[in-house]
């Protein structure tokens, strides 16, 4: 079934006949969007993947360059921000109920709004367009994707726009809060491509290795967090037929870096390179700077990303946030990402989180939480770290957790 034509509509997305599985729906984008309607300036709080996918389907079915859309899960929009959205001209669609804008206005034609994750404060609105969010070009091999990202996140839009733009790119949506079920869902629907954060992958590999090994994956994508070699190697061993990609993206910069060679980091020769339609990358004072051709509106020129970058040999590694990475131990600076990398290199460590903890005399001490793949003594991990790190960087408090903590964003950092 195809949507009713509209004389003012923008080009029909080529992928409208791709299959979509979301909640109880199993059909095509076209079928999902049939009969849907949206206010001309809409902020939609989608409480499920099905509701979110239906919103997009309705949006692209009636997209006529007059509409404006902000789509997010309710958890990403604090209650106090919802009235502000209405004051800013959005009709608020929440659980099927539409509340009109307090100050109605004309739509910004074709505008799609994303929200930042809000990890460093209240979520900010970031202006994009559907075309700008469609970053994958060229012919693509047929794939059936699993999309576990929270609705409206940049990575979620990446999978959605890939499916809308390319025939043969089906999507099976998994609810982020039901993260334990996705391998079963993927097997049931013959998924052969999965995109998730490194934490998402580590958690699944730890929790359900047998079922994970049965997934016939041809494409494995990681993004949203620093990607280390250990998780790439594990995935490459498990899925030898798959292309393994990691994507550096943010709501503001867009998908600025894509690496497909199975190695952590990106080639250092990319720094300073001027290539049409590619991001320009630089490392200044240890921080990654990006001039992105796929960034948000207004994200022009070379911009600091807030992400720490380290050059090791011929690779540049994005290791964590600049603001939270540094731990000051008695005046000696420790990179939490470096400590984390050492812990993750231990064969018994499946996941690690490192932070500074307030301590007497030295100000902060390095502490770490880990999840193990097999029993290991804390003393063993301490000795492992001590052999690889300066004394002040060795975690002094190590805690073993039973399971990998996963936030709605599929990340585990705070």
């Amino acid at each position, binding site marked *: 079934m195809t949507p009713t034509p509209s004389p003012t509509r923008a080009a029909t997305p080529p992928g409208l006949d791709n299959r979509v599985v979301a909640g109880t729906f199993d059909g095509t984008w076209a079928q999902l969007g049939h009969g849907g309607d949206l206010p001309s300036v809409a902020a939609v709080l989608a409480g499920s993947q099905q509701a979110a996918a239906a919103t997009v389907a309705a949006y692209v079915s009636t997209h006529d360059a007059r509409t404006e859309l902000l789509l997010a899960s309710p958890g990403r929009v604090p209650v106090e921000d919802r009235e502000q959205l209405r004051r800013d001209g959005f009709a608020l669609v929440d659980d099927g109920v539409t509340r009109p804008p307090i100050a109605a206005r004309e739509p910004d034609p074709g505008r799609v709004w994303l929200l930042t994750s809000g990890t460093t404060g209240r979520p900010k609105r970031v202006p994009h367009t559907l075309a700008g969010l469609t970053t994958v070009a060229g012919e693509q091999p047929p794939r059936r994707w699993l999309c576990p990202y929270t609705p409206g996140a940049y990575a979620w839009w990446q999978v959605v726009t890939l499916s809308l733009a390319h025939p043969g790119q089906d999507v099976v949506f998994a609810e982020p809060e039901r993260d334990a079920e996705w391998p079963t869902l993927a097997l049931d629907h013959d998924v052969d491509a999965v995109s998730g954060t490194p934490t998402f992958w580590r958690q699944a590999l730890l929790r359900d290795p047998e079922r994970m090994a049965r997934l016939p994956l041809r494409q494995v994508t990681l993004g949203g967090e620093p990607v280390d070699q250990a998780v790439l190697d594990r995935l490459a061993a498990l899925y030898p037929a798959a292309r393994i990609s990691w994507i550096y993206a943010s709501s503001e910069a867009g998908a600025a870096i894509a690496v497909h060679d199975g190695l952590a980091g990106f080639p250092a020769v990319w720094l300073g390179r001027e290539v049409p339609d590619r991001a320009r990358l630089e490392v200044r004072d240890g921080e990654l700077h990006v001039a992105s051709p796929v960034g948000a509106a207004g994200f022009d020129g070379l911009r600091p990303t807030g992400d720490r970058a380290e050059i090791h040999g011929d690779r540049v590694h994005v290791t964590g946030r600049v603001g939270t990475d540094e731990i000051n131990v008695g005046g000696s600076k420790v990179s939490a990402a470096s400590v984390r990398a050492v812990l993750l290199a231990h064969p018994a460590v499946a996941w690690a989180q490192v932070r500074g903890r307030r301590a007497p*005399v030295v100000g902060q001490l390095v502490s770490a939480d880990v999840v193990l793949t097999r029993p290991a003594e804390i003393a063993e991990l301490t000795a492992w770290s001590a052999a690889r790190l300066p004394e002040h960087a060795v975690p002094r408090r190590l805690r073993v957790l039973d399971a990998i903590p996963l936030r709605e964003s599929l990340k585990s950092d705070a």
Partner: protein
Amino acid sequence: MNTVSRDEVRSMMGDVLAAQGKPLPADELTPLVDIGFRSLDFSELALRVEDETGDELNFDAPGLRRIETVGDVLDFLEQLQSA
């Protein structure tokens, strides 16, 4: 607030040193410098006590004095728990 006894603090201090292959001498007058118990170790010991009691120690409490021996460490952490 739970408290940790002096003996328990001493045992924790032994654990901190043991992780580095160092023994804790029985003589509480032993200078810390002689056994290689440094500021990092002292900080770790304080966090171990905090983890055990479930409360942060108040290091801003007045009347803190020099800590030079094993006994000073034990006295100090005992004193802080009652601060």
